[in-house]
């Protein structure tokens, strides 16, 4: 299904991301005339980075490991709330120390760690199933996580961290307030950090794909029984892909949470998982570079369509359906592949076909 990619091809992906980042920085600085960013686009920069990380990590599960997951936003919410908790706790417990960088790093690490733990716990039952049943169970876990987060309360009192389930009467200042979510978050996320997280994700995922483990994961995707018969530990490698994907989603979630002054668990419902899945499918299943491009374009697109007002999401939905119909139309498909062949013969233009 997917071509084996030489590491040198990954270089194009890295270079492209760095180039776009530098262009954005240039536009943000406002040094160049006629090349400035609108305010709404500026506000989208961190979410774009978050969705790129989400799409790339989901592509690891759906494309590389071949398991349809409909609950990716669940890991994002675990990461978001654990990241916010760590960051806000440090803020209130050590108000005098100036710990911005440390808080951000710890928040991202905590987000990745807790989402990774959730990935292990969920992976154990989920990976026993297959196909659509696996998909529905990931959906179920996503909804359970959202429901549970609506029931937890954390407060900070001096340097004490208090936790309660279904009971909002805690001493001190509430950090996470059940259905009200986290409020009064001190924003830490910046576009630069988002860019670094995207690069980190790409390095992790692309190196994993090109490693021995990655080949094992893809072998299991293509034929589980054949892979098992040549001595690949199926459970171990499926779990590896699932947990790494969950941990990366958790880090993206932590960054997302720290980009807003308040956030509720509703933000991470089923629709968000689906949105990320749309990025992955439109970008090309198993194609990491495609995920990056699709996540960027499809996050910016609704902003671009803002002039259409109420018709914005309607147009978005119609575009989505038409793209799916067109990309599966045999005539258009053969036309596209012949165009790609033309580019392939000319190695200078190789990067433009993706």
């Amino acid at each position, binding site marked *: 299904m997917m071509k084996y990619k030489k590491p040198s091809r990954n270089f194009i992906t890295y270079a492209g991301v760095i180039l776009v980042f530098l262009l954005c920085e240039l536009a943000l600085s406002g040094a160049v005339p006629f090349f400035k960013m609108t305010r709404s686009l500026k506000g989208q920069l961190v979410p774009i980075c978050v969705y790129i990380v989400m799409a790339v990590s989901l592509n690891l599960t759906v494309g590389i490991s071949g398991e349809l997951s409909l609950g990716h936003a669940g890991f994002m919410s675990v990461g978001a709330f654990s990241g916010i908790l760590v960051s806000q706790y440090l803020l209130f417990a050590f108000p005098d120390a100036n710990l911005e960088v440390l808080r951000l790093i710890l928040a991202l690490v905590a987000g990745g760690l807790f989402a990774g733990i959730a990935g292990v716990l969920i992976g154990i039952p989920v990976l026993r199933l297959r196909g659509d049943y696996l998909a529905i169970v990931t959906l179920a876990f996503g909804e359970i996580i959202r429901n549970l987060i609506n029931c937890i309360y954390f407060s900070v009192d001096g340097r004490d961290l208090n936790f309660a389930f*279904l009971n909002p009467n805690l001493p001190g200042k509430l950090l996470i307030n059940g259905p009200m979510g986290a409020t009064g978050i001190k924003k830490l996320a910046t576009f630069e950090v988002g860019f670094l997280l995207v690069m980190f994700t790409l390095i992790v995922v692309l190196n994993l794909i090109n490693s021995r483990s990655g080949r094992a994961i893809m072998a299991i995707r293509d034929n589980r029984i054949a892979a098992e018969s040549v001595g690949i530990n199926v459970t171990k490698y499926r779990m590896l892909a699932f947990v790494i994907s969950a941990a990366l989603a958790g880090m993206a979630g932590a960054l997302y949470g720290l980009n807003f002054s308040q956030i509720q668990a509703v933000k991470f419902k089923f629709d968000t998982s689906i949105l990320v899945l749309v990025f992955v499918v439109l970008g090309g299943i198993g194609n990491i570079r495609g995920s990056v491009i699709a996540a960027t374009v499809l996050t910016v697109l609704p902003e671009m369509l803002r002039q259409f007002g109420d018709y914005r999401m309607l147009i978005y939905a119609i575009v989505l359906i038409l793209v799916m119909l067109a990309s599966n139309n045999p005539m258009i498909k053969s036309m596209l592949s012949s165009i790609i062949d033309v580019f392939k013969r000319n190695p200078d233009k190789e990067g433009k076909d993706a």
Partner: protein
Amino acid sequence: MIQFLSYLLNGISLGSVYAIIALGYSMVYGIAKMLNFAHGDVIMIGAYISFCAIQYWNLPPAIAIVLAILVCTVLGIVIERLAYKPLRQATSLSVLITAIGVSWLLQNIALLIWGANPKSYQSLVGFGSLTLFDGQLHITSETFITIAANIVIMIALTLFTGKTKMGKAMRAVSEDKGAAELMGINVNATISMTFAIGSGLAAIAGVLLCSAYPVLMPTTGSMPGIKAFTAAVFGGIGSIPGALIGGILLGLIEIMGKAYVSTELGDALVFAVLIIVLLVKPTGLLGKKIHEKV
């Protein structure tokens, strides 16, 4: 005890709605092997049509229901023709994304026509309520009619798939599309028919759901849609009695969980039970066992 009885009836009633929706999911999955995520939104459209028929066009409830069924049936056929039929040969993931696109499309059309503000739905099947045990137990007519409708639909569908030519064709197509085609069955017509029946049922479910829980919004259908999908998987997707059992159990767990455990955790409980069932029986309660050949 009487309180328990009342929860029991409410649970069965809610479960009946889930069962009717789950049937649509299950039949479409059985035949087209696709997860039709737009099904929940057909419910919402059905509810809006009946709402308009009563509120704006002053039609009697019976005609409003028939109108909703007709509109949804046509809608189901049109969606299948335009969006799903060109994707018969495509991967299941492409079809899934297209279904999601259709779901967003329907929600946004509803948003443009009827606005984002919730409408309060006037019950179409409310005739008062039955009071038993010296006023301790109220049973509304909605509860009775929902359960009755569910029973009638289940019997009718079982007879339809078992006895009629079209029903047998449906079972044949879901068993083996290629072989069915060779036997002279019109596969496209059969699939259209399945979508028509599923969407018609969705309209009925929409009317019943909104009569019992009278808040109507463009997103009204999505959560019941997901839960009914869960119910279909729970009972074994592709099976009619499975949808019935799955739906009713799900409704009971939800109502009992909300009443006795915690209101916030009702939904989490539903999904937790689903996961446990799938771990013990990976293809659902009444699902067919899949044999793996090497």
